């Protein structure tokens, strides 16, 4: 499995972003814009996800005149399941932090 519990926040961001449009094909610049990642960070992540079978890729069929064909990405079933888990974990983490800050305790233990 390419994804580990301690995977980078950037990888989590890409997974969550791809999960936002399940089944839809997305292109690299769109993902970069929405996640705020630079191309040098985003593409290695896409490569790892693709190598791990979490992402499927294809080339755009009919690009408009004057623009090169885009390479498109979408989550596989396995990738979508994993991204859902990641999103759930992130949401649970956010809820915990909000609860702790309301109680007036530090959000990070030991802080």
């Amino acid at each position, binding site marked *: 499995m390419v994804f580990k519990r301690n995977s980078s926040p950037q990888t989590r961001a890409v997974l969550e972003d791809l999960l936002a449009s399940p089944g839809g094909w997305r*292109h690299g*610049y769109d993902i*970069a814009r929405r996640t705020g990642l630079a*191309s*040098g960070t985003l*593409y290695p992540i896409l*490569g790892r996800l693709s190598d791990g079978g979490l992402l499927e890729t294809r*080339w755009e069929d009919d690009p408009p005149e004057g*623009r090169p064909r885009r*390479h498109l990405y979408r989550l596989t079933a396995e990738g979508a399941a994993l991204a859902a888990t990641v999103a759930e974990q992130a949401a649970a983490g956010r809820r915990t932090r909000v609860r702790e800050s309301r109680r007036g305790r530090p959000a990070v233990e030991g802080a």
Partner: protein
Amino acid sequence: MSRVVQWWLAAAIRLLPQRRRDLDEGMLAEAASVPPGRARGAWLAGGMWFVARQVLVYRCAYWLALCGAAALVTALKWVGTSDDAAQVVMAGLLAVAAELGWAVPRRAWLSALVIGSVLAVTAMIQIALGVDGASVPKPGGMAGAGNLFALLIPAAAGAYLGRGLRRSLRRAR
């Protein structure tokens, strides 16, 4: 400027294995959709970093590792003056050959050839240049140095052991 970078990227991408090219070509194609100016410059700069790292990994890493391993074995032989120096050199030679055979199984033969012959070749060069040192076989001269080609056998054993381990592990998965 951006055209030069795009040309450089396209040329560098061609150095990559076919199976790795799609992602890089996709990144390059996306540059046309990024607004010109700083944003496109940043996109291409990130792309250059990404492609350069891959070229390094896929094209240069093995050769650098091979040179490093050969240098390590030569250095072990060069500095070894104790009674058990030969055993240390043999252990080092076996270890690096096995490591290279594991890392790049399809080039196990080349790893064995380079690691196994490096000591003989360096000894011959030293003799030819008249440089003395622990790595020059005494007595024997050129013929003694030639005998060091026998190290091809343990180097091949190490490299093919590494390759075999890697392949059997892959099959087991």
